[in-house]
């Protein structure tokens, strides 16, 4: 029982990371139908930015560093859209071209991180290190609980934001019909830029949270997360906020159990098989709405 609970707790805390990253994918996909490959690189870059700031300018101040990192990540997201996506989008080209462009951005960011940070693992500041809570025999570290709580808070904020805020409503309108929004005189470009910024900020939150959870940082932190978060997005139903979240948690918990009761090599095998099977049974993902067969 203790083992079961322990594995469940581990799964949920990893799931929070997946969920946060997945929302970023989902947000941009729902607006542009673009799989933004650069998201995984933003995940890594913001962790590196956090590390760099923490070990120099804002030494020791986690909260301040965190805020600065989020600002930087938001700016990065906006710039990515401005430089690599917008020119292609404005030509009205297929988003396959934008996809390649985002792969290019990913390569560039990863290389910059590698070059500046090096490939050594380095200690990452964490919160409440060494504090544990015993949940019915499952040892839960304080940072795990913080991550889960923060994720849930962000999800509610995001949900509220898209429902009730002007910008949020704008984003939802964009995901319905881009051209109509353009004709209605909405600042489409700004809104898309904002959505990239929001996606990047979420990636930054999860990147920093993940490194805090590992209490160390190396340049390979983003590599495994990117594909998984993308998979989680689709599993839950692309373009649906709660879909990305549920997908992330399901995927992480499954992985955790397969690794804990079977083997780590089987872990990815099972999780990718689950994705295929779920999509065959429900081709639009768990929460995805059936697309109108419009004739």
């Amino acid at each position, binding site marked *: 029982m203790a*083992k079961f609970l*322990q*594995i469940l707790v*581990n*799964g949920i805390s*990893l799931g929070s990371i997946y969920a946060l990253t997945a929302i970023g994918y989902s947000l941009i996909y729902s607006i542009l139908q673009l799989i933004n490959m650069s998201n995984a690189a933003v995940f890594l870059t913001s962790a590196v930015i956090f590390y760099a700031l923490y070990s120099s300018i804002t030494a020791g101040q986690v909260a301040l560093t965190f805020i600065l990192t989020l600002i930087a990540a938001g700016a990065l997201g906006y710039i990515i859209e401005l430089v690599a996506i917008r020119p292609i989008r404005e030509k009205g080209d297929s988003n396959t071209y934008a996809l390649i462009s985002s792969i290019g951005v990913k390569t560039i960011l990863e*290389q910059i991180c*590698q*070059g500046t940070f*090096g*490939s*050594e*693992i*380095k*200690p990452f500041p964490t919160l409440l290190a*060494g504090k*544990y809570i015993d949940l019915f025999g499952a*040892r839960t*570290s304080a940072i*795990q609980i913080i991550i889960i709580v923060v994720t849930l808070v962000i999800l509610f904020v995001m949900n509220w934001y898209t429902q009730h805020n002007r910008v949020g409503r704008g984003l939802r309108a964009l995901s319905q019909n881009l051209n109509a929004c353009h004709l209605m005189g909405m600042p489409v470009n700004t809104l898309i830029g904002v959505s990239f910024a929001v996606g990047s900020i979420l990636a930054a939150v999860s990147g920093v949270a*993940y490194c805090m959870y*590992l*209490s*160390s940082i*190396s*340049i*390979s*932190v983003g*590599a*495994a997360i990117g594909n998984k978060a993308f998979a989680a997005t689709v599993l839950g139903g692309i373009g649906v906020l709660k879909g990305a979240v549920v997908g992330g948690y399901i995927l992480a918990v499954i*992985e*955790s*159990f*397969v*690794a*804990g*009761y079977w*083997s*780590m*090599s089987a*872990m*990815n095998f099972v999780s990718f098989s689950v994705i295929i099977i779920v999509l065959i049974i429900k081709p639009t993902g768990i929460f995805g709405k059936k697309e109108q067969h419009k004739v």
Partner: protein
Amino acid sequence: MKKLISLLLVILMLITTVGCSKPEDKVESAADENGDFHVAVSLPYTGTNASYAEYIDMGIKVALKKLENEGWLNGDGTGKIICDYYDDKNDATEGATIATKVTTSTEPYYLLEVGSFASGVSYPCATIYKEAEMVQYALTCSKSDYLETSGDWGFSLSMTQDTAAARVAAYDIKHLGFDKIALIYSNDSWGLETCKFYTATAEKLGVQLLASEKYDDGQQDFTSILTKIKQTNPQLVMCFCAENDIVLIRQQAETVGLDCEWQVSSKSRTSNVLQNLGDLGEGLYGIYAKTKDLTDPVYLEYEALYKEMYGAKYAEDNNTTQKYADQGYNCMMTVIWAIKETMKTGTTRQAFRDKLATLTDFPGVQGKLTFATGRKILQVQYLSQIVRGEDGKLKWINYEDLLNTFDVDAVAGLK
């Protein structure tokens, strides 16, 4: 038209990638018209193993600096050794491309190649160097059949895994007395081989492993397998992992409350691990090939130069030189020795190889280096451990005296 222009551009790129000259056989000497020798260094400067590449690179540069201070090979500023550095991204395909480039290049004409880091990259390239009859100095390659595959042309400064892993098992079981052991290893050719030899030796010594878990490259979250291992209640967890992974594993073991002794292989017995683990590292066992005699003039000379060139790094690593830098230094020093020895009669690739194979009791920074028959490097391996020194700081300690009372090779069945 646009297509044609782009095609022309591509062709132009191809032509300029390397000058259009066919390789010709150089018989007399591998040196160029200035009397300089060229060495190709192929290391994973980018990718997951880049930290190792960086250290080896540092060692090589220290050796070159030393030679430069001595006035190069001839003592009068001529006879330089010029290294060209290639990034193989820890990728076998890239490695093979570089191998082809290096073996066929005439401008410059390379005497030998140094690298790569991982067995998975240097091993498949070995045949290319063998065919081109050029030395591949894969200093860290430990694959058990590397020396056979590379014909006469492969050299390595690392113990092969059959020996190394068996020794670790002997230390763990017979000296430290553990009989409840769990194993974590990386799912790559190095991890698989070490696991195989470790398990075999353990079984020979009457110990069944409680668990044997492998993980894929890029894995960051080990909590699930650690929870699984925790259920088996091991006394010792043996990790055949890269240094970055051991840090994560050890930290996450704390998260799931896995309380036992830990041991790492020689690959992860590094100052990096010491530093990143902090207090968690206390008591961690490691295995170490050779030791640095801190009073040895060879070492002192190297250390002084190292400190001069990489002072910050040196301080960061607890005022020691990095182990892989030592390897790089040793490698380049043996290369310099072999060139010097053959210069009178003409340093060809063949002469160089023949000379290098006879290396005996060469004063390296980690003690004497000898290539025995079949170019097998002879090395002693010590058990080591992270302990708290008198100054309250953690550091790696090597149990050298142990070998006087504990014949590890006999126990491991290697004699």
